């Protein structure tokens, strides 16, 4: 019986150096996309969530997750749409968990601990509309909400949104239309429009 001895001292060192080089390449490639797509992740999260702190947390988490699974992305040109979906999904999760915690806070908190109301009349009116808009957005179906948020982002054409979401331009247009219409129906009672007619 011939004894088999496996010696890999040189091979191991070579393998480690190759692994480090691959890691450095991945990091470099991701960094190049980070500067471009980081704000996009934040804005998508901000579109779903109501405050900037939550949006920043979600954007960070989305970018970290994208980096963690970066090697799984075969077509790197799809990074933007991939990141948008990650950020959107994480923001929805955060919104749901926050709603649950808000219900708990409402049940247990004292009235004097609530934040003071805004003093400026116009600011209050603006905030009120924005609050209603946020709530109306939360009630939208997810597929309508994502397309509407992307359409509201600066510098995104219908074709780009279609590419990011993976649907046709016609579907993008119809989703935008129905999303705005549903928002208008929900907000009509909060505005001085045709609600009384």
């Amino acid at each position, binding site marked *: 019986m011939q004894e088999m001895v496996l010696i890999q001292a040189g091979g191991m060192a070579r393998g480690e150096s190759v*692994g480090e080089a691959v890691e450095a390449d991945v990091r470099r490639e991701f960094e190049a996309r980070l500067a471009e797509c980081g704000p996009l992740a934040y804005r998508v999260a901000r579109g779903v969530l109501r405050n900037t702190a939550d949006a920043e947390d979600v954007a*960070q988490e989305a970018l970290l997750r994208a980096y963690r699974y970066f090697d799984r992305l075969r077509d790197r040109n799809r990074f933007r749409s991939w990141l948008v979906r990650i950020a959107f999904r994480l923001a929805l999760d955060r919104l749901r968990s926050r709603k649950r915690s808000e219900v708990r806070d409402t049940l247990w908190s004292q009235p004097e601990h609530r934040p003071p109301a805004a003093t400026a009349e116009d600011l209050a009116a603006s905030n009120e509309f924005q609050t209603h808009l946020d709530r109306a957005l939360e009630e939208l179906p997810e597929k309508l909400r994502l397309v509407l948020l992307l359409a509201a982002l600066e510098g995104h054409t219908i074709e780009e949104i279609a590419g990011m979401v993976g649907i046709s331009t016609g579907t993008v247009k119809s989703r935008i239309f129905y999303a705005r219409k549903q928002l208008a129906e929900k907000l009509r009672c909060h*505005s001085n429009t*045709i609600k009384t007619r």
Partner: protein
Amino acid sequence: MPFEHHKDALIEAAATGVEPESELRAHLESCDSCRAAFAEEQALFASIDAGLHVKVNADVPVSLLPRVRARLDEAGAPRNSWITSGFVLAAAAVVVVAFFAARSVRRTNVGNEPGETSVKTGIPPVTPPSQKQTAVVISPVGKNSNSPRQFNSVKNSAATEASVRRNNEPEVLVPRDQEVLLAAYAEQWSRHKRAPLLAQDSDATILAQLRIAPIQIDELGVKLLAEEK
């Protein structure tokens, strides 16, 4: 109400942002309430768009990217899923190859059993029950056997395996037409523990006939030449 009649058309026109059709446009020129309602609808959609724009295009915190980079440094290398999946695939491939190799070897052995002779040590031959067996198993009888000419010649049956398992002697699987000859050989082997036709047994007879006699040379007679004359 005149507005209810045109309500959907007005909302649709305000939502799409396109110019109303000629009929609706003519009505709007003549109906103050519908014109006011249409203006309010346009204002509502404009405020929705403005609210969305403000909400979505907020300034990105300057701390976002530095914090992400810091967390990337903490996180280290991205998960190399291809390595783990590669190991899993390699292990699965090895298992599959080993399985098929073992199966093919077993099939080869089973397929070759009737035609070839193989020596087995205590392990009975494994053959499918449906296969017709033309080979027989011969095992030399031990010294403590009662019958000196006894040998086991059994066809493929359940008794074969049982008897073979009991017998720890080496077994030879032979073709059927050589059964008698090889059984006799096995018997002789079991008796004398040596082959009957080895060259060493025939040395005395065969080599004697082949022995070459030494060369015979007569003695030479030496005579003087003068005496001969």
